[in-house]
């Protein structure tokens, strides 16, 4: 193997100190010298690094960063450099599988698809299309999401479409909609090149978007480095570099953010003219945050008043600021309300719509943005508003269908509710593509029970036999990145094309081909009797999407496959006015809040109650941004005598999601082979726990057994990475989500993975063996029982 750097040992590589233009560094890793390089981009986090795929004899043999790309300037992180080997795994799914007599057996595509069509029609007959739900991913391509969105919304007419993007990025979308009227990140990664200050809230960027962190590290080493404020309960790689690190107690983002805003408003370091001309709601926000003087913040959040003042000094005095938020905000209490406070910080200081001033409500997954744009999740295509009849009419005209077939009587069903309906028997067919809920959803025993339900027909479309696929009734082998062509969009709205480099293994097919095949077999038609899906190839699907997005904030109409294949990715909106794309949104400070444009009429931040069209029209801000706030609310489950510790979950630098791909790279797997429980030195001493000892962790919902890792967290808090399930190791319960809660944010509906009350005890060998044994036996019994009954 040849590589330009060892990204396992040195995650971020050599520094290139700079201010202004970020120097190029091309990272490369190959097994053999490729015959050709094929343009693509990385799909192992939301950063969206431009990448070439090296191909030799029809096989992927390596990758290299694209020097010309605006996102990464040639760099790649450890996941990007090593994760590609998963394509070549021997255990890829190669033929469709159908459950017969309780066992998954190989079948033809015809047989599998006909069974899916037969089941769909049976469910529609009994329950209408309300009995059908789709649970997708942040991994498919734009063309696939859009095609599925049209099938679901105009073919079947079901409101039950969402993705595991709900678990990772729903709050980003919700917060942007609440403040600016629509989804869409205001800034550009180039903001980092010049900014004076950076704020990371609940975002361990060093581990999550390693290449973005390289850019920040290079700034930190260059001239006039930016000051860095990090809000995170753990001393992460990111926190270690902070000028000021605030470590709030779990669930107290709102007190900290309200406290920071209060100090900034109080010191008068706000842009009064901007507030007056471009926002609504300042007086109310001021009253809300005024209740949070630093001393009260300290009392509730544990963040020392002096440190809060230091942070406010930086954030209040910088003339340019880049802020990011991720799961520490999105998966915690009052998620949307806290994320909105980050937007508010920029609005009250007028730091938006110009170079150096960016807000990144981060996405977790590489193509999550496209699920939001294309509407295969709980949104409508093109950021359209389900409450706006004109928006529905636009879609109906575009698709040539009766507007009434498009479900728009209430917001599209969110993921947690889809699973609840399946639990209640109110959804009887659940189609899961490119995601692994049996490891990634909260409260896994409940999810397993739902997947195993006799009255639920489960379709899983995946490249691998995941923990979820094992429980499916039909498994469809999917082609992945490198094996199909399509586009996807990163956090700063940069759209990349990823070309097909090799053939998929066996009979595996792209998700696009599978969805189009389903549409044909279901015979979905438009008003004139023509096929509803009028495209066959990914390029035709992209052209259809361009039409759908035209005139909306996420306008792709000026792009084409050939334009995207010329060099760097391109930032939307890209249209006649901006043929080369747009680095910054809102440069004129006109936001997407007008009643006829906005993607939502808004929500009550405490309850999620929807504002009606009439109510919104009465207060139509006509392009001004919303300043909204709310007061602190304690989490519903807090540590007590029985479960005295806080649990929080998170990621590791070497893995992505449930490791379906990264776990199949030996280098990545060896770098982070197993789950663990991280506890503070104080708690380790209190419980008499030594490094590496096996610990039983229990919540009210389940139990895991993990080796102890001591240090790096606050006393009273324990941390478990969420990546690890059972496909490669099932000798003990180890998935963090055995413990987590089925509850969610009232606005974004994103589940609260960041806290739960747990207790810990030292495990003895006997417990480990017997528990593992019980779990496997119970699972087998349930599976065989249910499935044999069904057969």
């Amino acid at each position, binding site marked *: 193997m040849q590589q330009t750097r060892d990204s396992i040992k040195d995650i971020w590589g050599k520094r290139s100190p700079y201010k202004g233009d970020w120097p190029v560094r091309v990272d490369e890793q190959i097994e053999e010298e490729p015959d050709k390089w094929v343009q693509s981009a990385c799909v192992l986090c939301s950063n969206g690094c431009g990448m070439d795929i090296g191909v030799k004899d029809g096989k992927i043999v390596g990758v290299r960063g694209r020097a010309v790309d605006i996102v990464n300037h040639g760099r790649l992180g450890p996941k990007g450099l090593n994760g590609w080997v998963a394509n070549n795994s021997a255990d890829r799914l190669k033929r469709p599988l159908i459950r017969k007599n309780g066992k998954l057996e190989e079948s033809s595509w015809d047989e599998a698809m006909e069974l899916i069509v037969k089941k769909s029609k049976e469910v529609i007959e009994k329950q209408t299309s309300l009995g059908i739900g789709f649970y997708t991913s942040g991994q498919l391509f734009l063309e696939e999401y859009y095609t599925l969105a049209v099938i679901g919304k105009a073919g079947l007419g079901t409101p039950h479409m969402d993705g595991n993007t709900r678990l990772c990025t729903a709050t980003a979308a919700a917060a942007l909609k609440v403040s600016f009227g629509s989804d869409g990140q205001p800034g550009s990664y180039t903001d980092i090149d010049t900014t004076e200050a950076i704020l990371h809230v609940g975002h361990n960027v060093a581990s999550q978007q390693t290449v973005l962190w390289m850019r920040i590290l290079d700034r930190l080493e260059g001239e006039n480095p930016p000051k860095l404020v990090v809000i995170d309960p753990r001393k992460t790689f990111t926190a270690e570099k902070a000028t000021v690190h605030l470590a709030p107690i779990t669930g107290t983002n709102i007190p900290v953010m309200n406290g920071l805003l209060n100090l900034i408003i109080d010191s008068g370091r706000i842009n009064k003219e901007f507030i007056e001309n471009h926002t609504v709601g300042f007086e109310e926000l001021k009253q809300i945050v005024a209740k949070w003087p630093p001393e009260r913040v300290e009392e509730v959040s544990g963040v020392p008043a002096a440190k809060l003042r230091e942070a406010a000094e930086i954030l209040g005095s910088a003339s340019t600021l880049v802020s990011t938020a991720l799961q520490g905000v999105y998966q915690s209490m009052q998620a949307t309300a806290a994320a909105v406070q980050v937007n508010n910080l920029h609005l009250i200081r007028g730091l938006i719509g110009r170079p150096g001033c960016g807000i990144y409500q981060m996405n977790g997954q590489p193509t999550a943005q496209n699920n939001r744009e294309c509407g295969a999740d709980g949104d409508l295509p093109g950021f359209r508003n389900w409450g706006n009849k004109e928006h529905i009419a636009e879609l109906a005209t575009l698709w040539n269908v009766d507007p009434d077939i498009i479900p728009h009587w*209430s917001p599209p069903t969110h993921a*947690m509710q889809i699973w*609840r*309906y399946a639990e209640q028997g109110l959804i009887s067919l659940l189609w899961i593509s490119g995601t692994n809920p049996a490891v990634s959803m909260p409260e896994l025993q409940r999810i397993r029970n739902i997947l195993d339900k006799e009255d639920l027909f489960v379709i899983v479309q995946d490249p691998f036999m995941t923990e979820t696929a094992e429980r499916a009734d039909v498994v469809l082998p999917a082609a992945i990145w490198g094996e199909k062509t399509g586009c996807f969009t990163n956090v700063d709205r940069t759209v990349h094309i990823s070309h097909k480099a090799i053939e998929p293994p066996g009979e595996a097919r792209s998700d696009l081909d599978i969805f189009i095949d389903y549409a044909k077999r279901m015979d979905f038609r438009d008003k004139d009797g023509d096929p509803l899906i009028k495209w066959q190839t990914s390029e035709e699907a992209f052209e259809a999407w361009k039409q759908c997005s035209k005139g909306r904030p996420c306008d792709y109409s000026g792009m084409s496959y050939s334009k995207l294949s010329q060099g760097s990715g391109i930032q939307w909106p890209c249209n006649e006015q901006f043929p080369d794309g747009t680095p910054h949104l809102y440069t004129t400070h006109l936001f997407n809040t007008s009643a006829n444009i906005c993607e939502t009429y808004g929500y009550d931040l405490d*309850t*999620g*109650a929807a504002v009606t069209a009439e109510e919104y029209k009465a207060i139509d801000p006509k392009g001004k941004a919303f300043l909204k706030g709310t007061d602190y609310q304690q989490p*519903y489950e807090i540590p007590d005598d029985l479960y005295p510790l806080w649990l929080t979950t998170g990621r590791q630098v070497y893995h992505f999601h449930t490791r379906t791909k990264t776990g199949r790279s030996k280098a990545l797997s060896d770098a982070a082979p197993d789950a663990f429980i991280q506890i503070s030195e104080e708690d380790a001493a209190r419980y008499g726990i030594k490094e590496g000892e096996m610990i039983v962790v229990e919540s009210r919902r389940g139990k895991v057994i993990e080796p102890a890792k001591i240090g790096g967290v606050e006393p009273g808090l324990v941390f478990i990475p969420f990546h690890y399930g059972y496909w490669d190791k099932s000798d003990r319960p180890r998935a963090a989500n055995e413990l987590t809660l089925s509850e*969610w944010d009232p606005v974004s509906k994103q589940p609260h993975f960041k806290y739960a009350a747990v207790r810990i005890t030292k495990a003895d060998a006997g417990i480990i063996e017997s528990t593992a044994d019980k779990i496997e036996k119970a699972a087998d019994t349930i599976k065989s029982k249910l499935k044999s009954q069904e057969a």
Partner: protein
Amino acid sequence: MHIGQYIDLVHRTEIDLVKAFKKVAKAHGDEPDVYQTCQLLASWSQKLVEEFEPIVKRYKEESDKEPDRLTQTLLKDTRKGGLALLRDLHDLYLITTEVKVCCTILKQASDGLRDKDLTAMCEEIERQTTRQLSWLLTRAKQAAPQTLIVAK
């Protein structure tokens, strides 16, 4: 003067509303959002009940205990089965509306009396009942198609 009767009516109906939200929360624990939001909304009403007490005392002589006709018939027992959640949310909507109507009527008299404290109290109750109603309607609308078309 009959204003005491309305003050008493608003106060007692708000107390009933606390109980009703708690009852529905308890009955639908399997719906985490309903459970948590109903508890939150019960806490809002509880706070209003307490803030209202000094005014209730001030007008005590005019009060008479007319039984609350509406809350006695609604939500006596929370329901079971496919329709349960929708019907319980519907009942909560009616009880909350009762609080709101009583309060709107009371505020008219309060304006006439120029009782600034009472008027402010009425405005706060109206504001909160509006938010409560808004959530109840949002959640009921969400549940309606699946309940009325699919549920057995």
